[in-house]
């Protein structure tokens, strides 16, 4: 272990930062809700539409196209998320890690080419 720390100590620092972050965010939110002035008037609460009073209620139904684009994004976003821990610990993993990640990228590359071919990236 580097510098003789135990595993627990390492997690200690991470949890310290996490707690500090939670406390900070919690404090800010709590203070602003308690101290913040609050006087909702009907004119203030109408949805903002560039200064014009909206005629119809905001529609709930969206074209399905948005959903497919969202799913594609999630696939490749998770792919990048996996790369972070891999990049940090590449020192220990050495050659085995490199090949492993290349295979992983290859598999997703096939998916990418398939989507591109089928025209999943164009709007319609």
């Amino acid at each position, binding site marked *: 272990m580097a510098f003789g720390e135990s595993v627990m100590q390492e997690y200690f620092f991470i949890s310290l930062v996490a707690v500090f972050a939670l406390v900070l965010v919690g404090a800010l939110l709590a203070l602003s809700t308690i101290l*913040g002035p*609050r*006087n909702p008037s009907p*004119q*203030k609460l*109408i949805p903002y539409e560039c*200064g*014009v*009073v909206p005629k119809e209620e905001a529609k709930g139904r969206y074209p399905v196209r948005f959903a497919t684009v969202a799913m594609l994004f999630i696939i490749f976003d998770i792919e990048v998320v996996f790369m972070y821990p891999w990049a940090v610990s590449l020192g220990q993993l050495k050659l085995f890690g490199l090949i492993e990640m290349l295979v992983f990228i290859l598999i997703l590359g096939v998916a990418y080419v398939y989507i591109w071919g089928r025209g999943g990236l164009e709007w319609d």
Partner: protein
Amino acid sequence: MGLIDQAYDLVETEVNNVKENVKDVLDQAEYDFSGAVYDSILTTKVGKVIGWAQKNALWPATFGLACCAIEMMAMANSRWDAARFGAEVFRASPRQADLMIVSGRVSQKMAPVLKTIFDQMPEPKWVISMGACASCGGIFNNYAIVQGVDRVVPVDVYVPGCPPGPEALLYGIIKLQEKIMNEAGTKQAAKRVA
């Protein structure tokens, strides 16, 4: 007989005065305890700190109408640089803005939109009326222009000029900051928020 009438008048005016005073006191009392928690813990020192924080982060809502909008853009740019006074970030939506710079002439068709945008801004909010057209109709005294924005929204600072130079607008913002600082911690600040 005249004496009784005079006495009667005297008593009546006296009663009216008392009634008047009571009404004032009631108003003042009702007003003092109507504020949110914000008001009750407000001592002058904390109010000053809040005022200081507000004045140095005046985020203007982009309300560029006409020629003054071009000078407002020049003010936000590198040469005149409103960032030195904390007013650099121009928020598009009124929800995130606390200063509305009405820059340009307000026509009759635009007045309701201006009122809607002003209402949708969260308190505390301030209005700078930039230019002669916004302040008093300017050179267009006709059917189409609202003769002064203060007929639609309460205005805090008027900046004269047609169009006022960026330095004049910056001076207006500095004046507004002084106004915020004077008002901080007093009844006006609480009334502005209540």
